[in-house]
């Protein structure tokens, strides 16, 4: 495994120069679709989740947001919106497609239930092929969504599903917590002012697990994440299964102050310095097991203090 990839954006800076600074100026394309509810309660729930997500992302900078609900969430409209991203997005841009609603699996094909003809996972995958952005996330929060992993997975795409298989057919709660990750600051667990696809997934997964445990109900959904383009998805992405590396680097939501700093020439130097220290910290953490505890603590303390001082300068 590539060590740089293992350690994410921070260490990549050390090796790849100003990659992250460029990324900070990229645009994020959000396509959110609330499908058919089937009954009023679900209809309302799906629409309100989609609108909640819409509201959360619109308040962040450099975004293009399209949210389709109710009768407008047709296959033709979804394809048209993707076409806009095909025309307008760049390779460094991030594309986030979120499906909220019910899904079905007939043993062969997964379909997202929408007004008019349903949208199959294969059809969605086919359309997304043409989007220039090579940093894509598909979040499928529907029932039976586990069956969409195989058609959707690519080595440049993170696929998140609410269920582990097409056979998990009950309505899900995962979507509710996934949307919550967009507005709960605690989802940003590394406090880098952005919520990555991995952070959002971990947040929603833990909340979903806690929901079933607290309710003392048998879990009817088991979320998965796939970002290698060749796996079946895993519940707990990490170094042991090789999943989660891409998802960690894909920001779903950025809070803004770093973008502003990146635009200021005088702060560019400090940002680069900051990124350098972050890289050293990541490297040290990577070597933690092989470093004597006292030495690790001492070096980590020194680097963290250094980083805090640089950040203080950036914030001035």
């Amino acid at each position, binding site marked *: 495994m590539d060590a740089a990839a293992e350690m994410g954006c921070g260490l990549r800076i050390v090796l790849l120069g100003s990659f992250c600074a460029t990324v900070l100026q990229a645009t994020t394309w959000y396509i959110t679709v609330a499908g058919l509810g089937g009954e009023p309660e679900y209809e309302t729930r799906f629409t309100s989740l989609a609108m909640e997500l819409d509201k959360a992302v619109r308040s962040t900078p450099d975004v293009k947001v399209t949210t389709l609900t109710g009768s407008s969430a047709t296959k033709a409209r979804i394809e048209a919106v993707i076409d806009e991203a095909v025309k307008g997005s760049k390779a460094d841009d991030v594309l986030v497609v979120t499906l909220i609603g019910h899904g079905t699996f007939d043993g062969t094909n997964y379909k997202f239930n929408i007004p008019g003809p349903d949208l199959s996972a294969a059809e969605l995958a086919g359309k997304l092929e043409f989007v220039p952005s090579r940093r894509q996330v598909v979040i499928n929060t529907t029932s039976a969504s586990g069956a969409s992993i195989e058609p959707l997975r690519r080595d440049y795409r993170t696929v998140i599903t609410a269920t582990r298989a097409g056979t998990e057919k009950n309505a899900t709660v995962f979507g509710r917590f996934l949307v919550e990750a967009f507005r709960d600051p605690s989802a940003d667990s590394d*406090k880098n002012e952005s919520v990555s696809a991995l952070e959002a997934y971990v947040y929603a997964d833990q909340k979903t697990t806690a929901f079933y445990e607290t309710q003392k109900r048998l879990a009817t959904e088991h979320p998965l994440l796939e970002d290698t383009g060749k796996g079946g998805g895993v519940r707990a992405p990490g170094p042991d299964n090789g999943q989660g590396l891409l998802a960690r680097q894909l920001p779903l939501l950025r809070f803004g102050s770093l973008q502003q700093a990146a635009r200021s020439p005088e702060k560019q130097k400090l940002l680069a310095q*900051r990124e350098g220290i972050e890289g050293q910290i990541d490297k040290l953490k990577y070597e933690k097991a092989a470093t004597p505890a006292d030495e690790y603590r001492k070096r980590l303390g020194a680097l963290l203090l250094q980083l805090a001082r640089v950040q203080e300068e950036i914030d001035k």
Partner: protein
Amino acid sequence: MKFVVLGMFVVAAWGQDCRNLHRHGKLNEAKACFAKLTQSGNALQMAEGYWYQNNSDQANNFFRAAVKAQPKNPEPRVRWGRFYLERNKREDAAALFEEALEVQKDYAPALIGMALVMAGGFDPKSVEFAEKALQQDPKAYEAHEVLARFAMEDGNPTEAAVQADKALAISPEALDALIIRATIDWMEGKPGTEWTDRLHKVNPAYAEGYTVSARIFVINRRYEEGIKLYRKALEMNPQYLPARSELGVNLMRLGEEDEAKPMLEAAYEAGFRDAATVNTLKLMDTYKNFVTLRTGKIILRLEKKEADLLRPYFQAELERAVAVFEKKYELVLDRPVQLEVYPNHEDFAVRTMGLPGLGALGVTFGNVVAMDSPSGRKPGSFHWASTLWHELSHVYALAATKHRVPRWFTEGLAVHEETAVDPEWGDRLDPGAIRALKDKKLLPIATLDKGFTRPSYPNQVIVSYFQAGKICDYINEKWGWQTLLAMLRDFGTGASTPVVVERHLKMKPEAFDVEFMAWLGKATESQVKGFDEWSKRLRALNAEVKAKDFDKIIAEAEGLRKIYPDYVEPGSPYELLADAYLEKKNAAGAMASLNEYAKVGGRRPSTLKQLAKLLDEAGKPGEAARALERINFIYPVQDEEMHRLQGDLWLRAGNTDKAIREFQAATFSKPIDAATSYYNLARAYRAAGQLDLARENLLFALEAAPSFRPAQKLLLELSK
């Protein structure tokens, strides 16, 4: 045809001969005899032979074949049923006895079998079956023995002696009758040799009898004496596997796992695989997933996954309870109290198997207490701290009386202690108790034990807890704690409830019942009288909530709250009132209603959180923290946010110790945002002046999130 019948008779006689050898303690001869039976070619006798050899599979096969070969004969079914009964498979046994009764209506041995099945489940129908058996066969002394055992388990040694004597009148070799006579003496502290001498003359190796006696001691919570009897049974006949298994189970109950495990394994390996043996072994296998904390007077066993989170709360309450009870009961235990906390309710349930009328939340075996973890229950349905104090009270009551305390009194004390430690804890007057009061279903004090061990209606055990608790409240209020303590000590001498009541309360039990009922009636009068109307109006009010007429809701809920103030279950007037007040922008009204809810004992975490939020918004962080602190005793698990908010409130209220405790709990709650958890802990340590710990936790926070601005700022401050 005659030959076949004669043949069957001869073979049956062989079986009876072998059983007689065993019955007279000639174990080697019996063994040889039963071994011969396995070669007899007769299915029923072969089954008996294999049963004796503990070869369950073969015994089952041949019993099945015997039943098939003799479809019109009830005997093979009855013997097969007895085989199952010995292995504690009561349902299978009952099915066979019922089949036998279909083959031959009122067949006495099948009726006795049914009586034994029912007795195993502490079901009063046992008496009906035994009496019916006697109608069919007045010489069926075993039926009298069953009645004697039932009476013993029912706490009625007088009736037990009568029944045992009837059995002995029919057969001087009625071994169970002799052992029951001896048990009556032993329970009263007498040697019982009159009976054991007779018993040993007939059968010097009657392990079955000593096992029966041991069970009676265990049912009466006299575990250590029960264990001695199981040991005696095994000395007499080491091959008697039920005694080996039950000894293992009871050793485990008392925390003697090192001896219990090999005992159970030996029973299992020898083919004795009843549910108690298998489940106890499985439970013991899970102990590797637990951690054990030992301090001076306590041993605390928690599951690894939740040990860090729960330890501070459980340890503090356990130590506090021990300190309080040592003074209150004027008793220092001779060994540490062991508390086991099970997140899986099924594991806890294994602990209570085979015991009558035990509450489903906790159970006490001598100095060992087992209870559910809060994580094993729905939020708001279980006050673990109240349960802990309840169970620990049993430890002291049992120790003070050498386990002779009657069930009603130890439960009454335990319920009394729940609210004595904190008026908000303990259960409220629930609708079941109100119905029992209305229908005059409370029992006389002299027979209150039956409400626990032989309930006659579905809710009676719960109602009996309530009644026993109220009796202790009443005695405490009128005569004082020292009288309760004196009664407890007197129970330790073996004195009966009527004697103890008369001696210490200076009145007959019947007179006490009259006084107590008058006192209780007065205390609950308005709630009992108004209950029916209250039920109707609350249902109507809950239906009207959708109409959003908040003035009407407020007026009605205020009224309902006054009629039945103890009702704090979901949909209570307190919550409806608070919601309506909030709709009317009356935060003070909502706060007052929820405060009342909490004080009465409302346990729903979401409602208590709502109260905390209102108090915080009203600028009362200390009171808000106290509102949340209540949840620590109810559902401190799977709620990192609650601990975080509580820690923050304590910090703002200037209580750094509690802030540290709560922020620590947040870090142990597997937070999604670990960095913030450690940062909060660092803030609390800093406020407490513990700067080294503050720096250490800041390091943890920044290790997880190096760019975490607030943590960076605090680091810079601490580095100056």
